[in-house]
């Protein structure tokens, strides 16, 4: 992938296919630890132990002809190439958590790119989808959300996409 935000979209599409109604996306950047990465957590149907064991194998797919089985394996190899890694946790019937991280100073780490566009496309045409977006750095932690749920009133998808862009810029460029 040319951008981390494209990898994020790919993982978000997995969440949608798994029937998720709520998805949490966290973008993290630590200058101190030289790490940048993301975590996607969903409440979809999750994976069995057997599926989870093979989830990051290339060409392994539960989607039959619909899937090439390359998404997670590509993410894992890209992250490892950039001095990072990928971890998947899943429970059948409960949901899945995918975390990928890269060494921030590695030349092989792709730019974060337009994460606002990723959020915008993911939310378009999915009015029932709740997206919680969190940004975390050594000194900052910000959050916004769309859809129902949570203690505070949800933001509109347009507001969330704009906030996602601003928050990502804030933690990465320290603006």
């Amino acid at each position, binding site marked *: 992938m040319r951008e981390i935000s494209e990898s994020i979209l790919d993982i978000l*599409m997995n969440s949608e296919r798994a029937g998720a109604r709520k998805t949490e996306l966290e973008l993290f950047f630590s200058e101190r630890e030289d790490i940048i990465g993301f975590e996607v957590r969903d409440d979809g149907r999750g994976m069995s132990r057997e599926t989870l064991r093979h989830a990051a194998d290339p060409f392994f797919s539960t989607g039959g002809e619909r899937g090439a089985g390359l998404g997670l394996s590509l993410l894992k190899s890209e992250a490892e190439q950039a001095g990072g890694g990928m971890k998947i946790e899943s429970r059948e019937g409960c949901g899945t958590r995918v975390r990928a991280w890269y060494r921030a100073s590695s030349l092989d780490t792709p730019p974060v790119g337009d994460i606002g*566009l990723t959020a915008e496309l993911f939310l378009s045409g999915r009015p029932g989808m709740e997206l919680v977006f969190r940004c975390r750095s050594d000194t900052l932690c910000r959050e916004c959300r769309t859809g129902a749920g949570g203690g505070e009133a949800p933001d509109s998808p347009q507001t969330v996409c704009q906030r996602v862009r601003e928050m990502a810029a804030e933690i990465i460029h320290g603006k």
Partner: protein
Amino acid sequence: MAKSTAELQEMREQMAGQMSLRVEDKNAIRVVVGMGTCGIAAGARDIMRVIVDEVGAHNATHVKVIMDGNNKDAENAPVVEIHVLGKDTVTYTKVDAAKAKQIAAEVIGEAK
């Protein structure tokens, strides 16, 4: 179960509403962008953006732009399909931003 005339009338109105929605959906031109892993890696996200922007700019409400997470013709990604009721599906492969703009213009023209 027996229903009163009023209940039946209410059901009829509800069903009529659903039917008209279905007819509208059928008439919509569906632009499907392949957004599987291979599609995204080949730049389908930007293609989707171009088409959504063009359709929005022309307020073409009869055109529905849809993301499809399945991998279609991965080696020729990005792939864009045009579905029109009663017509064969048209598939565009290796779509770039210029082609996407052209596809959107053609589809919007057809939707008018």
